[in-house]
């Protein structure tokens, strides 16, 4: 077990210092670059934008000194998952397949730059975002900073590790089945998947166009709100209202198979929230057992559609496992895809029904602690389960339904591995979900900025 970086101020703590000139953007960039260099063995970054980031930091310092402060992200180094276009850098998608060479930034990157953020580099990922463990990537396996023999999750693993290790202060991730929330849970960071289509996915290599989301990964919920606001391109504000909430814990399929320590953490969080006068009750999401089948029959053909020409010309450049998952998507029958789309509507209605009368669903973000690298099965309640199924089970439903969801640190296992809880809100109510999550974070994680799992 290792101890990740300790100088982990949040964006919200740094922003006033940068605005006053007490901390310079150049110092922040240099600190991040030094951390990237010091921990190269974790394989966190694919491209480090040293020269550009230092130049952008100098410009930010001049603007701030000249009275042109753009807001809380001005002068703050952030990372971008290497599935997202950044002008002038290759978009590798973590693959040996020839990269894209975009001339323009993805809109989400442009908005962060407009808010004054400095792009420090592009982070490693599970190849083409098609996996949850990041042991299939052309740029080296991403190691969990809490135990390098374990996975950092995926697919946005580089983003999560970069936050834990102090290599950036905010990160862009993407999430098609849990790829923001899973590495956040595995590494003890905050990860937000907003409502479907709330943030634009243009300029991002698609996996499944009807399930793809992009969002911020940060060290606190407040930082996620700051990043979300910048990525939205418009103020989102803070929802005021009651400070006590009603939570629904799903019963049945979703939580029937949890690692013992994850279940204990859920029980502990539930008790803590009740002690703070929140209401926590059980809710049923009708029909949720079909979720993995619906997910497969939507994601596989959508992924295969994008990759078909690349598979025809560069099949051997893919990792073998990723290639097989993409190839198999080409065999599905259209009638079964349509069945999956119909059942997705029913699942969406079931989640809406479960959210009726409550502020957020509460469940773990990941059913197990970070698994050992290379493992294909994990044992839960004494019986084996495929790692991929165990890692996706609690998150993929909300990619199908488009509801906003956020992972928040919720303590660690006895071995010191982070555990993450997940809150799910109503569609189009991402801002309200962030307000709920800020309250929860303060009560279950030992306060904002408790990266690495908090004290709970």
């Amino acid at each position, binding site marked *: 077990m290792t101890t990740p970086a300790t100088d982990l101020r949040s964006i919200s703590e740094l922003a006033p210092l940068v605005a006053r000139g007490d901390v310079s953007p150049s110092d922040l960039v240099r600190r991040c670059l030094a951390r990237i260099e010091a921990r190269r063995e974790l394989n966190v970054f694919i491209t480090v934008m040293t020269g550009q980031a230092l130049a952008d930091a100098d410009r930010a310092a001049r603007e701030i000194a000249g009275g042109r402060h753009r807001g809380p992200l001005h002068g703050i180094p952030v990372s971008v998952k290497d599935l997202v276009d950044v002008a002038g850098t290759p978009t590798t998608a973590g693959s040996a397949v020839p990269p894209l060479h975009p001339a323009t930034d993805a809109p989400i990157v442009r908005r962060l730059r407009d808010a004054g953020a400095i792009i420090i580099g592009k982070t490693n990922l599970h190849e083409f975002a098609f996996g949850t463990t990041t042991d299939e990537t052309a740029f080296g396996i991403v190691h969990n900073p809490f135990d390098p023999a374990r996975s950092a999750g995926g697919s946005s693993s580089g983003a999560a590790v970069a936050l834990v290790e102090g290599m950036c202060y905010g990160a862009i991730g993407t999430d098609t089945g849990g790829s923001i929330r899973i590495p956040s849970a595995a590494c003890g960071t905050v990860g937000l998947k907003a409502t479907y289509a709330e943030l634009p996915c243009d300029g991002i290599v698609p996996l499944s166009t009807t399930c793809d989301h992009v969002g911020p990964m940060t060290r606190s919920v407040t930082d996620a709100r700051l990043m979300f606001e910048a990525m939205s391109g418009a103020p989102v504000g803070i929802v005021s209202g009651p400070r006590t909430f009603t939570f629904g814990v799903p019963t049945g399929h979703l939580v029937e198979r949890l690692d013992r320590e994850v279940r204990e953490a859920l029980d502990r969080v539930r008790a803590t929230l009740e002690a703070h006068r929140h209401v926590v009750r059980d809710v049923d999401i009708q029909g949720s057992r079909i979720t993995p089948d619906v997910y497969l029959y939507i994601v596989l053909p959508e992924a295969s559609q994008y990759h078909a020409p690349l598979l025809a010309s560069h099949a051997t450049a893919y990792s073998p496992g990723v290639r*097989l998952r993409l190839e198999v998507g080409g065999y599905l029958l259209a009638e079964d895809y349509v069945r999956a789309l119909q059942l997705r509507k029913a699942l969406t209605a079931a989640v809406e029904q479960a959210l009726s009368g409550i502020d957020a669903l509460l469940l773990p973000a990941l059913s197990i602690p970070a698994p050992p690298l290379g493992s294909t099965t994990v044992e839960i309640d004494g019986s084996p389960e495929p790692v991929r199924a165990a890692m996706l089970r609690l998150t993929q439903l909300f990619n199908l339904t488009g509801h906003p969801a956020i992972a928040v640190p919720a303590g660690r296992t006895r071995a010191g591995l982070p555990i993450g809880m997940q809150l799910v809100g109503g569609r189009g109510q991402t801002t309200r979900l962030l307000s709920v999550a800020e309250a929860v974070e303060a009560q279950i994680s030992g306060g904002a900025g408790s990266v690495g799992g908090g004290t709970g």
Partner: protein
Amino acid sequence: MNIEDWLRAACADADRRGLPELKPLLEALARSAANLRRADDAARETRQPGGPA
């Protein structure tokens, strides 16, 4: 197409392409397709009669 015929044709194609490693994945997909079809049938039974003329 029924699932058994689909699986047989898909596995034969995987063999023809020199990708026998696809067969376990195709078998898993066949199980998922069966689940989808059962769920779809159940959903139909609960729907109101009628629909487009």
